[in-house]
Structures are given as structure tokens and as C-alpha cells.
């Protein structure tokens, strides 16, 4: 096979992959509203989900409790936009269990998306 043919095939595969991004995992879950807790993220964190796309949480952002789901406590920030990207783009709140980010809560879909892998956070209460 010539180099040119390989180049064309690679370009077609790249186009197909770009056109077919995987969907963000959505596990239905129930949020029980809550308030009164907050923390500051002292170090930035880059969190992967199963689509292969990562979400960056910036250092020095303040996170407020909005409720709990079976997977952990759900926190939201007004200091940055947090989205999960796959075939679509979804706003997400972080889900924290014992100081570790275990995934994201999608408020519109009312669903949980696990982080792969879970990630310990550097936080200051």
C-alpha cells in the first residue's frame, strides 16, 4: 500500500472518529437537596471520564454543597463553568466522597457520570 493511500485512510478514520464521539455515561440518580458545606480547591485537578475527554477544575475555586446522591456529596461552583464532553456537552457538578472526586452530577439529566479513575482532591474547608 502506498504512503498516499495510507494517508487517505488515516484521514478518513480520523474524520469518522471525530464524527462519532462516545456519549457521556448517564446513570440515573436522585439528588437530595442540602446546603451548609463548602470548600476551596487548593490545587487544580484534571478529571477523566469514559469518553476520553477530561474536565479541569481550577485551583482557588469555591465549591458549595447543593445536595447528596448515593455516590457522595454534590458541590457546585460559580467560579468556573464545568462541563462533561462526549457526543454532547453537559453541565456538571462534582460528586465528592471522603475527599475524593468520584464523578459528576448532571443537573439537567439528573444523572451521575463516574470519574475514571476517582481522584483525591486538595481542599481547604
Amino acid at each position, binding site marked *: 500500500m502506498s504512503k498516499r493511500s495510507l494517508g487517505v485512510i488515516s484521514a478518513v478514520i480520523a474524520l469518522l472518529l*471525530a*464524527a462519532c464521539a462516545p456519549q457521556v455515561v448517564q446513570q440515573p440518580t436522585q439528588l437530595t437537596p442540602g446546603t451548609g458545606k463548602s470548600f476551596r480547591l487548593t490545587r487544580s485537578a484534571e478529571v477523566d471520564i469514559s469518553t476520553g475527554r477530561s474536565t479541569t477544575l481550577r485551583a482557588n475555586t469555591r465549591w458549595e454543597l447543593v445536595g447528596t446522591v448515593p455516590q457522595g456529596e454534590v458541590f457546585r461552583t460559580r467560579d*468556573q*463553568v464545568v*462541563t462533561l464532553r462526549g457526543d*454532547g*456537552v453537559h453541565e456538571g457538578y462534582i460528586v465528592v466522597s471522603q475527599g475524593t472526586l468520584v464523578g459528576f452530577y*448532571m443537573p*439537567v439529566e439528573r444523572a451521575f457520570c463516574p470519574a475514571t479513575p476517582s481522584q483525591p482532591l486538595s481542599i481547604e474547608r
Partner: protein
Amino acid sequence: MQIRTVALVVVAASLLLSACATSGPKFSEMSATMAAAKPDVGRIYFYRTALIGAAVQPEVRLNGEKVGKAVPNGFFYVDRPAGNYQVVTETEVEKKLTFTLDAGQVRYVRLDISMGFWVGHVYGELIDEDKAQSEIASTRYIGAATTP
């Protein structure tokens, strides 16, 4: 190439560029005089900076309602009650963005384009206010604001 062919190419290019041109006031000129959203609603700005794929200008639907088009170098806005929102743009595939809107909150949705199989895919990205303010400044108003 013959002079006539060159002239035809130039005319065709001019027509294409004029079709893509956006003629309204710039955001930076308009923002000072733009009425603020009422306190019980939030505002969503939609804008597109990229000129790549300028001929691809799908409709933008918000919770099923057509609110504008993804015009390169253009922006528009809508005021809506607090709640959950889904932005859909469709070319050869449907692309979705979901987010929440609070009363008094301002959201910025940038309409980007990525490669598709036959046609580029236009999709919405939720952008931080600081970044959006700098990106939207040079875009031009392309549509009337609507209220709930």
C-alpha cells in the same frame, strides 16, 4: 487561466464572502445600551467567532424553540426563566448542550464547528464569563432578543 475565469472566481468569492458578512453593531458597541434582563429571568448569549465553515449556519434551538442561527462573527441573546435548558444544533448530526439557568444569571454559549463526515458539526460550548466577554466583544448582533 483566462482573465474571464479569474474574474468569475473573484465574483463568486465576493458573493460568498458577502453572504457570510455580519452587519449589525458590535457587542462592544452595543453592550452599554443593551437593556439588562429582568431580575426574575436569566440571559443566554449565543455567539460564534470562527469563520471556518462559514457556509454552515444551522438553526439554534433552545428547548425545542428556534431562537437564532449560528452565524459566523455574530451574536444574539434571549432572556428566559430559571430552569433547565437544552441547546440543539443540527447539520448531518444533532449536537446537544445542556445547562441550568438561575434568575439573574448570565450564560454564554459559544457555537463552535468541528469536522464531520460530509458537513461540519456545529455545537454549543458553555463558556466562562471572563473568556466569553473577550471573545464576544468583536462579534456583531444578528437577531432580536426575545423574552419569555
